[in-house]
């Protein structure tokens, strides 16, 4: 499992997990559920289109992800009505299906783009993927504190001149980058689980922001590694394992919260009984 072409897979998986953990932390913080669905759908159409004109899928992924991100930014500035966004989401998927139907390799291509593929990234694409990953992480690092304040208390941030709109656009672009490099491995329909599950779980275990971010990365790494390993053994789709493990971690996190609360209550009542 750890030799030959699988070395690629583990390297890519690690980068994917770290980026998903970092970017996903802010996706969850900002409650950006909609972009987390919409941008991957755009990516799917882009990859399908790239496949059609025999261009590297990364380019198709990148261009359409960026387009979707900027489109979302523009629409939300104008106060988007719900229907057009839901329809645009679906339109992207239909477009991707149309592109794929025009090429010869319909079925396997659709499947791996939607649900992931261990070897989704070929060896000559590892470098661009790593570069994109670094770009994402550096961007989040540079904007870290601004992202925090604009996510948590946008009016206060605006009063300080931090320009929440610009930060939002920048963040959407980061999500587009992250989507471009993670969709080949996890799949367009399931990548959002990796961006949401680990961060949502991590913040159940700690109050401290940096630790929650770190936890998000660690849980994402564990999820992706286990998913790659299981997928290698069973041949079942990577996306399946990623989604199930992400949900499991989230369940563990919520369970811990409940357990912790009841423990605190017992401790408090025990203490008051002693004093009283």
């Amino acid at each position, binding site marked *: 499992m750890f030799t030959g072409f699988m070395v690629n897979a583990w390297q890519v998986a690690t980068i994917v997990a770290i980026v998903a953990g970092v970017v996903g932390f802010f996706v969850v*913080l900002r*409650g950006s559920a909609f972009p987390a669905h919409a941008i991957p759908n755009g990516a799917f159409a882009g990859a399908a289109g790239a496949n059609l004109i025999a261009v590297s899928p990364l380019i198709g992924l990148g261009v359409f992800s960026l387009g979707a991100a900027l489109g979302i930014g523009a629409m939300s500035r104008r106060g988007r009505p719900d229907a057009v966004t839901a329809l645009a989401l679906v339109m992207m998927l239909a477009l991707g299906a149309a592109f794929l139907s025009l090429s010869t390799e319909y079925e396997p291509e659709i499947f791996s783009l939607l649900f992931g593929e261990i070897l989704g990234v070929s060896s000559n694409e590892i470098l661009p993927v790593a570069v994109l990953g670094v770009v994402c992480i550096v961007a989040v*690092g*540079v*904007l*870290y*504190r*601004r992202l*925090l*304040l604009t996510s*948590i*208390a946008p*009016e*206060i*941030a*605006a*009063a*300080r*001149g*931090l320009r929440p709109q610009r930060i939002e656009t920048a963040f959407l672009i980061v999500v587009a980058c992250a989507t471009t490099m993670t969709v080949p491995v996890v799949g367009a329909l399931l990548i959002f689980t990796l961006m949401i599950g680990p961060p949502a779980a*991590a*913040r159940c275990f*700690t*109050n*401290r*922001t940096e*630790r*929650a971010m770190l936890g998000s990365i660690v849980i994402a790494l564990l999820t992706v590694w286990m998913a790659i390993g299981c997928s290698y053994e069973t041949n079942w789709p990577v996306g399946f394992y990623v989604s199930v493990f992400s949900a499991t971690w989230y369940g563990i996190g919520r369970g811990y919260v409940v357990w912790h609360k009841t423990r605190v209550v017992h401790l408090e009542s025990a203490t008051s009984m002693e004093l009283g």
Partner: protein
Amino acid sequence: MTNSPVLEVDNVGLSFSGRRILDGVSFEIHGGEFTGLIGSNGVGKTTLLRIILGLQRPDSGEVRVLGAPLSPRSRSLGYVPQKVVIDPDIPMRARDFVALGLDAHRYGFARRTAQQHELVEKMLHDVDAERFADHRVGSLSGGEQQRIFIAHALISQPKLLLLDEPLANLDPKSVQEIVALLHRVASDHQVAILLSAHEMNALLPVMDRIVYVTDGRAASGTTDEVVRSEVLSKLYGHHVDVLKLHGRVLVVAEPGRDNEDIAQHPTLTVD
């Protein structure tokens, strides 16, 4: 305390959808002064505060902070908005939120110095927030969050602190505590305060000046100067009576007149 004003609002006006929201509003605030921006709901107080902050452009008039036209990066203003809802699931402690007040505008991921940590500690002490400093910001009560936002705004040492209806959703005891707290930190930290409210009685003991707003027009001065029948009648455009009772103020329109625009002042508070 210098003589030049910290804030000058000069003949500010703003229209929206054909309605004149603010019309020729002028007043000054000097260092260390506690000013109440009093007016009923919907009268334009939040709009005025947003104009002062530079979040909205007036149609006419000018706002100057420390003599210069406003720029968002000036950081001379601190702001506590009206309704800040923070998700209790967000992993950030109260003390970390206060610390963000120091360096949210900075790029990068540098660690905070010991000196900065001390500053945060002191600020938490000043607003009486030590006992919940390690709790999540989103899990605090309204009054507790209020203190944290005040600490967040004050820690960068602004010259003027703006608060939008901070007393609106608090119980009477918390109102007294916050007013006393603001008065205390204002003098400790040499900060002028501009606080909007629809009820002036809780602020009477600490207000140096009042800016009384109705229908887009404002009168400013000390409480004694402004809260008088003649002044307010002119402001409202019809006769109102001002009654003072046991150190509290009651503003009433004449019988037959619609008390609607004044009725928003729950005037006489009963303990």
